[in-house]
């Protein structure tokens, strides 16, 4: 579903260095790393929000650098800080998003109702987003990201600010999506989330991929047979820093 080769980006100093990544369809992939490791930069390049200095990105067989519009058609991006319009209601926001992705009206209407209901936002569909809590904003943005039924959903810290119930809702939604063959790539600092949710995990440090695999494979790489992902992560990243 997503293939990245030799991806590089520098902002005066290197942020991402020769990154290779292959993520299969129907997979939840967690990209982990310390602050400033290059996770968000990588994801923003994949979504077409930043131009890479070098490398290639292929989404669902589409060269995302050569045909960005086609690649974006099958991708959704959910940033860490949900950027909504304060003066739009969730329903109006989804209407706008449907327009951007050219989702047929009937289809969009049904999906919007289903998503807002699943995320517990249907009773608030007519209220302006300005009065929403962080969690409600995050869920509205997620509904917007899912409205065009993207094959690849890219999320930066999707569970931050959500309460336990909302967090469970989102996780269930993500599992249902990968169950239907869609792909989810996410970053998180909550390692338990990655441990329980992700099929595969990649650990970035200083712009480079230092380890990749299932949780079990990472344990083996780190030599931490019974350790938690936190133990594995700290071991791998501190080893590199040392």
């Amino acid at each position: 579903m997503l293939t990245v080769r030799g991806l590089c980006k520098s902002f005066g100093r290197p942020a991402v260095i020769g990154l290779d990544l292959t993520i299969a369809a129907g997979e939840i992939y967690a990209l982990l790393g310390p602050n400033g490791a290059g996770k968000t930069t990588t994801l923003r390049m994949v979504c077409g929000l930043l131009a890479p200095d070098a490398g290639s990105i292929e989404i669902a067989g589409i060269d995302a650098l050569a045909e960005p519009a086609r690649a974006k058609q099958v991708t959704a991006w959910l940033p860490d800080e949900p950027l909504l319009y304060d003066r739009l209601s969730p329903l109006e926001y989804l209407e706008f998003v449907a327009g951007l992705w050219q989702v047929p009206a009937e289809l969009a209407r049904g999906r919007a109702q289903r998503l807002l209901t699943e995320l517990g936002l249907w009773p608030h569909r007519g209220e302006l987003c300005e009065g929403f809590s962080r969690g409600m904003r995050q869920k509205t943005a997620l509904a917007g990201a899912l409205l065009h039924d993207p094959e690849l959903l890219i999320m930066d810290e999707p569970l931050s600010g959500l309460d336990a119930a909302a967090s469970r809702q989102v996780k269930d939604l993500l599992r249902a999506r990968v169950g239907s063959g869609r792909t989810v790539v996410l970053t998180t600092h909550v390692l338990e989330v990655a441990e329980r949710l992700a099929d595969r995990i990649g650990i970035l440090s200083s712009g480079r991929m230092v380890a990749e695999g299932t949780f079990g494979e990472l344990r083996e790489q780190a030599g931490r047979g019974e350790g938690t992902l936190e133990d594995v992560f700290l071991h791998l990243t501190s080893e590199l820093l040392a």
Partner: protein
Amino acid sequence: MSLYIGGLGPPAPAGSRGRAPGLLTTGSVLWLLAHDLRLAGRSLRSGGGRKARVVGIVLLSTIVLLHLVGFATAPALARLHDSYRSEALLTSSVALAGAFTLFLSKAISETTEALFQRGDLDLLLSSPMPMRRVLTTRLLAIAVIAGFLPILLVVPLVNGMMLRGQFAWVGAYPVLASLSLGAAAAGSAMTFGLLQVVGPRWTRLFARALATLFGAMAFLSSQARFVVPDELRGALWRAMVPAPGVMPWGPQWWPARAALGDRLPMLVLSGVAVVAVLSVSAALGQAYATGVMGNLAIPRATRAAGVERRFGGGVFTALLRKEALLLRRHPGLGAQVFYQFIFLVPGAVALMKVGDMGGHSPAGVVFLTALMTGRITKILVAGPFETDQAMALAITSPVPNALVLRAKWMVTLAALSVVGGLPLVAITLKLTPAFPAALLACGAAAYTRLHLALSRPVQTRRGGLEGRMRASTDGLLGVIIDLGWGIAGAILTIFI
């Protein structure tokens, strides 16, 4: 509605891939523009029904009042148009040039904001919407925003003329629309040019200065007679003014001729404006996306200092350092101070000339300097006192509030003595006897403004009509205080 979605929804109609959508279908430029304008409209109506009603009543009253003025002044304008003499063309040209510089100023400001604010760009740029379409919409929105007020002022005059049967004046509408479109395109091109030449770090400062300069162009032009030598002015005037009885054909007269109802210039002007917007969108669409996202991704570099030079000096030094750094990095401060100087300097030069001719120039210069000192104090105060983003941090720390405030005072006064000291030095050198009065008036104006800011602190993120009304009352009070100290200084100068 014809809709398509690759691979997910119903199959795309044959031949629709890549084709631009119709004029008003979802995803079109006008659809996006309607979305932007809906948000702007709701922003105006925010604060509930009461505020919406007040805004509506004020707007409606203003429109009615302006229409009455327009209807009353229509006969005079009708005579101007009937004559269609060189004076009519010149007057219209000057008015349109003034409007264009105002449009341009606003367009540069808006483009600069767009370059440094993420806003909804994550959503727009991660969608399959072509970049040039997003930029075209932004340019149209900038044109609407830039043109709104000037057009609101002109419309009643034009309507008044038409009510009196002068239908040729309808040409003013497309001319103003063309000028605002052209200004949006030119302003964006200039700002992107700056981004290429000076880089993101300095673009905001230069662009704001440029916008300020264009915004004050009409005023500066009116002051040209005091600054430009008489011979040069005469030569320029002769070159500009068309000969009596001769219909000028040069392109510089086309906007005025279009506004006076000449069809060919009107068509050409409208065409040029539309082509300018489309060309800029096509040329800069991708640069817009990469420029904005690049700017936002690049962390603003600060001067690197070793860690050993940090964390020293105690509480008060930390407070002073923080206030000084934030004041220095305030994004709009330089341009706002520059704006004050733009208005002060030509006025002061004019007064000096009057003084050379035997008038009371020192009193006028002291008046202007005190007025400007008050206004600059207000600008400098805004950073430390009014828009402190982390005031709660200092309040919840074990540092006494008095110390926090003292640091703010000291930094503001230090900045004021540097900026406000310049005109005082000039007065000392040129008008030495007026220096004591200037010093007293400026000191009093600065002190009162500081005291006003301290006694009536205003937070930036206030909401609702009440907060805005209080801000505008404070603003009015501040202007009255500045004027009062200016007049006091002028009187003192005469007596000293």
